[in-house]
């Protein structure tokens, strides 16, 4: 049986390969067991020190567990390409704003291509895109190509920057991949400080140095805003008009004659504070276009990042009137470091600039001695120190930071650079470590029970032949796990379900064959002939039925997201493995048994 020798070698080789691929998983497990046994912290430390390299190697190559099993965070981020497009446009007028608003509402509910929607909006209105983008001479096609490139670059850059931030934060085995035109998937196993991660990923890290305008202008501007709001309120009392939405509604409801001053505190010395409760409302209010028109030209109102405690325990934020055009932006920053300031209590981040930035910074500080320059990060003012002298060395400091942890995070985002466009978190899943442990336990338990029940039934029903199926089943599971480990795909709870389901499906191929062989035996054929005919006649049914299931698994993998892909992957590997174990492994076992006359009609039950 030359053919069988080849098959036997193949089986042994594949089994060896599977075991080899799973060996690091076993090592990893046994190391963690040994670590658990160490009694004191010193013992564990020295154990790790002694075995460092092999522990790390084993951990790297071992079978990974999915986020649901080991705990962690799964996030889907969306890059706001519309914001990017808005930034790129010049000469923005009302028509443009309407187009942007339409694009925003049309793309809000899906992963659609923003640029395509934008183009169709322009075409619908038959407006040339060069009115707002790039050069006037450019044709629409040229502009579309350029915009598309910008958008693509923005997502790629955003992904790189996020990867940078995650790497610096220090997460083991993060997964960062883009999905569709403007989404980025971030999977962070074992992360527990969700809020910190969220801030770290979401912040654009847009650093700007802006001049602070004098307090008089701020007070005047607030006065104008207040009277404008009060006026609007009167007109809104008209019942035909719909109620103001969201934040707007709150002030409308109050019907006060001083709608702004109800939400903002102006001290006698002229300093302006925003109380904690109205922070969100004010931030939204100052972003509104109608309000921005009331400010002096090229200015904006921003709140401080950090709050101070008032005498009654309430928290207040500083309010600043800034020159809108920044003097300098974060692009010039080359180095950032979190440290403690001179007083050694206040954490701060020191920054160094490149030569271009250094020259500009020297000029800016030189020209504005005695005035305040605000350091603005993602729209919040961190500090607004008074310039005391010209700064020639290109150094700058951010203070007004809550704690050293925040300073470290700032260091990370400043080093990684600013995101090309804002990023929003549109999906977030967090699994605590306890739930993960529960999942592992129940998943493994049910897999073991499923395997056990099927194995017992097969031996009970098909006797010796059933026993060969059981060997095939064990090999099957071994193959699935080793392929997962080999391609460093993670095993998730749906993945375990996929394996358990594979057990059921793998049995199918064997049942088909055995039933066939029984029929052949019933027709009076001898053992060898019955087995051979059984296999060859069952072949087409097995291939046809398994390929269709394989196809369904493949489609699941293509269209599925996250956890579903894990299920589809194990299902596909499982079916491929079951084709091999059912058609090759059991056949070799039968042939060997028949050669030794160990197989009779009774062997098939």
């Amino acid at each position: 049986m030359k053919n069988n020798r080849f098959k036997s070698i193949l089986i042994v080789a594949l089994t060896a390969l599977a075991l080899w691929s799973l060996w690091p998983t076993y090592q990893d497990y046994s190391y963690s067991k040994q670590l658990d046994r160490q009694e004191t912290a010193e013992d564990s430390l020295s154990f790790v020190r002694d075995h460092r390299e092999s522990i790390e190697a084993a951990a790297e190559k071992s079978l990974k567990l999915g986020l649901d099993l080991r705990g962690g965070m799964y996030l889907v981020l969306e890059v706001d390409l519309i914001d990017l497009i808005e930034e790129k446009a010049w000469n923005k007028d009302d028509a443009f704003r309407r187009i942007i608003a339409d694009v925003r509402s049309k793309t809000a509910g899906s992963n659609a291509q923003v640029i395509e929607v934008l183009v169709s909006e322009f075409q619908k209105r038959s407006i040339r895109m060069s009115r707002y983008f790039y050069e006037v001479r450019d044709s629409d096609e040229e502009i579309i190509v350029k915009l598309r490139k910008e958008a693509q670059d923005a997502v790629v850059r955003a992904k790189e920057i996020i990867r940078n931030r995650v790497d610096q934060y220090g997460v083991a085995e993060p997964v960062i991949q883009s999905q569709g035109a403007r989404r980025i998937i971030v999977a962070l196993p074992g992360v527990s400080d969700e809020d910190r991660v969220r801030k770290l990923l979401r912040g654009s890290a847009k650093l700007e140095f802006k001049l602070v305008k004098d307090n008089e202008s701020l007070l005047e501007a607030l006065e104008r805003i207040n009277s404008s709001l009060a006026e609007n309120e009167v007109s809104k009392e008209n019942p035909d008009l719909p109620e103001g939405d969201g934040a707007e509604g709150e002030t409308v409801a109050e019907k006060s004659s001083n709608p702004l001053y109800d939400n903002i505190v102006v001290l006698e010395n002229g300093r302006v504070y925003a109380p904690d409760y109205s922070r969100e409302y004010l931030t939204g209010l100052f972003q509104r276009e109608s309000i921005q028109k009331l400010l002096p030209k090229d200015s904006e109102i921003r709140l401080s990042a950090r709050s101070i405690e008032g005498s009654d325990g309430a928290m207040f934020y500083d309010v600043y009137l800034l020159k809108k055009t920044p003097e300098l932006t974060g692009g010039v920053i080359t180095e950032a470091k979190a440290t403690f300031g001179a007083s050694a209590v206040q954490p701060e981040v020191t920054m160094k600039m490149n030569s271009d930035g250094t020259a500009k910074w020297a000029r800016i500080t030189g020209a504005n001695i005695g005035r305040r320059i605000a350091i603005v990060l993602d729209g919040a003012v961190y500090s607004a120190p008074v310039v005391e002298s010209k700064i020639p060395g290109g150094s700058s400091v951010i203070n007004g930071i809550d704690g050293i942890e925040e300073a470290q995070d700032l260091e990370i985002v400043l080093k990684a650079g600013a995101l090309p466009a804002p990023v929003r978190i549109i999906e977030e899943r967090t699994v605590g470590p306890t739930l993960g442990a529960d999942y592992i336990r129940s998943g493994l338990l049910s897999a073991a029970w499923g395997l056990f029940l099927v194995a017992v039934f097969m031996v009970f029903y098909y006797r010796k032949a059933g026993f060969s199926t059981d060997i095939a089943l064990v090999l099957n599971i071994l193959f699935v796990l080793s392929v997962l480990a080999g391609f460093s795909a993670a095993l998730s709870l749906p993945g375990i379900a996929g394996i358990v389901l594979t057990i059921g499906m793998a049995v199918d191929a064997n049942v088909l064959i055995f039933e066939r062989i029984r029929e052949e035996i019933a027709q009076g054929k001898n053992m060898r002939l019955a087995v051979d005919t059984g296999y060859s006649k069952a072949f087409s049914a097995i291939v046809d039925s398994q390929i269709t299931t394989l196809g369904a698994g493949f489609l699941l993998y293509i269209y599925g997201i996250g956890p579903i892909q894990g299920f589809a992957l194990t299902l596909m590997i499982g079916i491929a493995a079951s084709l091999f174990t059912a058609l090759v492994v059991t056949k070799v076992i039968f042939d060997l048994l028949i050669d030794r006359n160990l197989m009779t009609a009774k062997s098939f039950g």
Partner: protein
Amino acid sequence: MQLIHKTNVDFLKNRKIAYVISLTLMLAGVLSLFVKGLNFGIDFKGGTEVVLRFEEEVTVGEVRSVLKEAGVEGAVKRYGADRSILLQTAFEGNLNDLKSLVNNALDDRIADNPHEVLRIDSVGPSIASDLKWAALKALLGAVIAILIYVGIRFEFSFAVASVMAIFHDVFIVLGLFSIFGGLFDYMPLVIDQGVIAAFLTIAGYSINDTVVIYDRIRENIRSGKSTEYTATFNRSLNETLSRTVITSGTTLVVVLVLFFFAGPAIRGFTFAILLGIVIGTYSSLFIAAPLVLDWQKKTKRPIKLRGG
């Protein structure tokens, strides 16, 4: 041992009854889908879910009233059977605010029974609508691929009948999900990503079963001289019956184990597969093959099979 020995059941004689049963089930399902709809999870409608576990038994009402007082809007339900509570809310925004709100309220009001936040999922509306499309695309893709594959390997009528059987299975399970959705705490039958995966698995399983029977019909038509299709079909169904029952049985056992032991997170998924196996087996015997026979009887064209 042999459960099913040479059988001679006339599967085809009563096929009209099977058609009526199936149509009734499908109609009931469709009716429920229109009237009651499906119990969509946050994967498909967006929102936030928090799973909490308490150290000791706690009543849903207690947690509900505490959370309501704290200003957390949403539904509070029992999650699985082990002192776990599920909070579903439309909350959008900073999850940390929600988490601390929930934690503070519960720490404060149910102080003697410590709790733990096991899981927080939050899905935005855009993801949800994408998921629906992805699921539909996957199902349509599967149907087209099966039409082509079975069409090539067998005959067009076989392909159409198998796809009808798939729709039959998926629709009935979907209908049952609608009818029983939200009735039991043990399995709320929420439509989430996992259940969609289950539906595709059902499609795969249904075709798997059907193809095995088709394969035997093909073989019997080839070897037999008689053109009496009814007898040939019946013989094929009987010859494969033992395999059909054993395979469905073992898979069913395995899925039952998953259903009871693998925890609440994939209970909806396993329930869908459980139903899918039962209905898929039934449809392979009483729908898929009989439909081909009826097609043949209508067109009076001899069946010309490819493949082998």
